[in-house]
C-alpha cells in the first residue's frame, strides 16, 4: 500500500466509525430519552400517546391504597397539582407517604399515570434533587424537608 492509500483507508475508517456513532447518538437522542417532569409540568405538557416520562414529586399523605395482589395506587404531588399513579410491582423500602420519589412510566388517556418503576433514595433524609427544586419553584419548600 502506498502512503496515500494508507492515509485514505484510515480516514475512511475514522469517518465510518464517527458517522455510525453520531448517527446512533442522534437517533437515540430523539427516541430513547424521556422528559423528567413534576405533576404541574406533566399536565401542561403535550405528550405523544405512549410516550415514556419520568414523573417526580411527593407521595401525598393518606393516598396510598393497596389493591389485589401487588397493585398499589397513590397520588404524587408538587403541592399545586396531583397525579394519580398506579403501580404493579414491589415498592422500594424507603417508599412512604410524604417521601419524595421518582417514577417512570406512561400517562394513559384518563389521566392515570401507569408507572413501571419507582425510585426512592437510599437515605432517609434525602430528597431527590428534582423534587427539591420543583418544591422550591412552587414556593412551598421548607428547609426542614431537606
Amino acid at each position, binding site marked *: 500500500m502506498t502512503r496515500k492509500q494508507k492515509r485514505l483507508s484510515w480516514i475512511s475508517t475514522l469517518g465510518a466509525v464517527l458517522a455510525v456513532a453520531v448517527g*446512533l447518538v442522534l*437517533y437515540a437522542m430523539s427516541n430513547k430519552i424521556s*422528559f423528567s417532569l413534576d405533576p404541574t409540568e406533566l399536565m401542561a405538557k403535550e405528550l405523544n400517546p405512549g410516550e415514556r416520562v419520568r414523573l417526580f414529586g411527593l407521595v401525598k399523605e393518606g393516598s396510598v391504597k393497596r389493591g389485589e395482589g*401487588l397493585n398499589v395506587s397513590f397520588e404524587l404531588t408538587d403541592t399545586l397539582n396531583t397525579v394519580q399513579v398506579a403501580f404493579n410491582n*414491589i415498592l422500594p423500602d424507603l417508599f412512604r407517604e410524604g417521601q419524595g420519589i421518582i417514577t417512570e412510566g406512561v400517562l394513559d388517556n384518563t389521566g392515570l399515570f401507569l408507572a413501571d418503576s419507582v425510585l426512592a433514595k*437510599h437515605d*432517609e433524609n434525602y430528597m431527590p*434533587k428534582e423534587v427539591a427544586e420543583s418544591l422550591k419553584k412552587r414556593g412551598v419548600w421548607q428547609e426542614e424537608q431537606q
Partner: protein
Amino acid sequence: MIVEIGHYTLILALALTLVQAVVPIWGAIANDDRMMATASYTSPAVFLLLLFSFAALATAYVTSDFSVQNVWQNSHSKMPLIFKISGTWGNHEGSMMLWVLILGLFAALVAVFGKNLPPSLKANVLGVQGWILAAFLLFIVFTSNPFIRLDPVPFEGRDLNPILQDIGLAIHPPLLYLGYVGYSITFAFAVAALIDGRIDAAWARWVRPWALLAWIFLTAGISVGSYWAYYELGWGGWWFWDPVENSSFMPWLAGTALLHSALVMEKRSALKIWTVLLAILTFSLSLLGTFLVRSGVLTSVHVFASDPERGLYILFILVLFIGGSFALFAKRVGTLQTGGIFAPISREGALVFNNLILSTATATVLVGTLYPLVLEAITGNKISVGAPFFNLTFIPLMIPLFIAVPFGPLLAWKRGDVYAAAQRLFAVFGITLLIMVVAYVFLSEGPVMAPLGIGLAAWLMFGSLAELQLRSGFPKNSFKVAIRRLKGLPRTVWGTAIAHFGLGLTVLGVVGVTAYESENITILKPGETANIAGYTLRMEGMVSRNGPNFQENAAQISVMDGTRVADTLEPSKRIYTARNMPTSEAAIKTIWFSQLYVALGEVKEDGSAVLRIWWKPLITLIWIGSIFMVLGGAYSLSDRRLRVGAPKPSAKRARAANATN
C-alpha cells in the same frame, strides 16, 4: 488526642506537598540535582503523614469516639468491627481521605520504584503529583475536615447508612480508588513529559506498568461494585447505566485504550501525541467522575451524601487540571515528532482500531451522561437518559471491536497479513458457527439475536485461545513440545490471552442474562409454591430475629428438588434501629454459573408475602470474566520486561523484544 495528631499530620502533609509541588519542578528547570532529588524524600514522607492521619480517623471509628462529628454521624457502637473500619470511608470526608491516601501512595511508589527514571522526568512527575495532592488536601482541610470535635459528646452514634453496612463497602471503594487515582500517575507522566518536552518509546515503557496497574484495580473495583449493587439493591440488575456507574466506566474505557496505545508507542515509537493525550484524558475523566459523584449534580441510585458547595470546589480543581494540562498539551504538541502512517492491516493498525472504537464509545457515554446536565443548564428542561440510550449507542460500537479482537494478536507488526490471520482463525470460526447453530436450535425461547451474541462470546473466547494454540504449534508439534513452548511464552502473551478470554466470558454472561432471564412476581402463603425455570420454591413461613443493630423479618423458602428440599433461601427485610430505616436483603442461590435470586416485598397480615423471584442464567460469568481480566492483567504485570522499574532497554534488547513480540 490521637484525633488532634491526625488533624495535625494532615495539615503537615499539606505543607509538605506544597514544597513537593514547587521545588522539584523548579529544580528540573534550573537543572539543579539537589532540588530535583527532594521529591524522592518528600513524597514518601507525605504518604506516611497521610497514612498516620488516616489511621487516626480509623482509630476514632474503631473505638466509637463520638466526640468526633464525622464518627458520630456515620457510626454506631454496636456495629460489627469490619463495618466500623469500612465506615471510615463510607462518608464524604472519609472517602476523600482515602482518595488522597491512595494518591499519596502512588506518588511514594514512583519515588521508591522509579530509581532508573531520568532525574528531570522523575522530579516533574512527582511535582505534578504534588500539585494534585495539594489541591485535594486543601479541599479536605477547608471544606471536608473529618477531625471536627463535638461538645457535648453524644452518647451514641447516628449509625452508618444501612445500605453501606456490607462487606462490599470494605472492598469496593479502596479497589475503585486504586484504579481511579492510579491514573493520576499516567497523567503526571504525561504532563511531566510535556514539561520536559521529550517523549520517546522509553517513556511508554515506564508508563505501561502504571497504566496496567491502575487498569487492574479499576476493573476489579467496577466489577465488585457491580456485584454489590446487584445483591444489595434488590432489583436484580447488575448495570443500570446510571451516571455514577458511567463515571467509573469512562476512565475504564479510556484507560483500556491507553493500555493498548502505550503498547504501540513502546514497540513502534509511534502514536506519541495520541498516547499522551489519552493519559491526560483518562485522569480528566477520573476527576470528572469524582466531581459528578461528590457534587450531587446528578440524580443517581448510588449517591449517598453530596454537597453542592463542595462540588464547586471540585469543579474548580477539575477546570484547573484539565484546562492546565490541555493548555500545556496545545503549546507543546507542535514540538513533538509524529510517527509515520501505519498499514491498516498490522498489529499496530489493529491497536489503533481498538483505540478508535474505545475512544468513540467513551465519547458516546460522556455525551449521554452530560447531556441532561447541559440541557437543563441551557433550557431548563429536565430529561433522563437511561439504559435504552446507552444500549443503542454503546453496543453497536462494541460489536466490530469484539470481532476484531482475535485478529489483533495474530497480525505481525508493521505489515500483517489478514488472509493468513483469517486462515489461522478458520477453526475458531467453525466452532463459533457450530455453537451459534446449536444455540439457535436448542434455545428457542430467547430473542432471535441471542445466538449471535453467544457466537460473539465464543469467537472472543476461542479466538484468544487460538493465539496460544498457534504459538504452541500443537497439533503439528508433539504435545510435549507444545507444552514446553507454552511454558516459554512471554507472560504478556498469556496475560493478553487470559484477559481477552475473560472479556468473552463477560460477554457470554451479559448475553445469557439479558436474553434468557425469567422473572416471577408472586404472593405466597405458607405452604404455597411458585415455579421458575424448572425449579419449585415453597414458602415455609416467616421468622423474626435480631441482629447486632437491626431487627430482621425473613421469609423461609425451600428450593425443591423433586420432593426433597435442596436448599433454603431467606430473603429478608431489616429495620436498622438507630435510623429507623428499612432495607431488603435478597437471597441468592448459585447453581453452576446461574443464580436464583429472591427478593422479599411486602408481608401481609395473613402471613402471605410478596416475592420477586428471578432466574438469572449465566450471570456469574459477568464477574468471573472480569476476574479473568484482572488475572490476565496481573500476570502480564509480572512479566520481567514490564516490571515496575525495569531498566531502560538497550537498542539491541529493544530490537530483540520487537522480534519476539
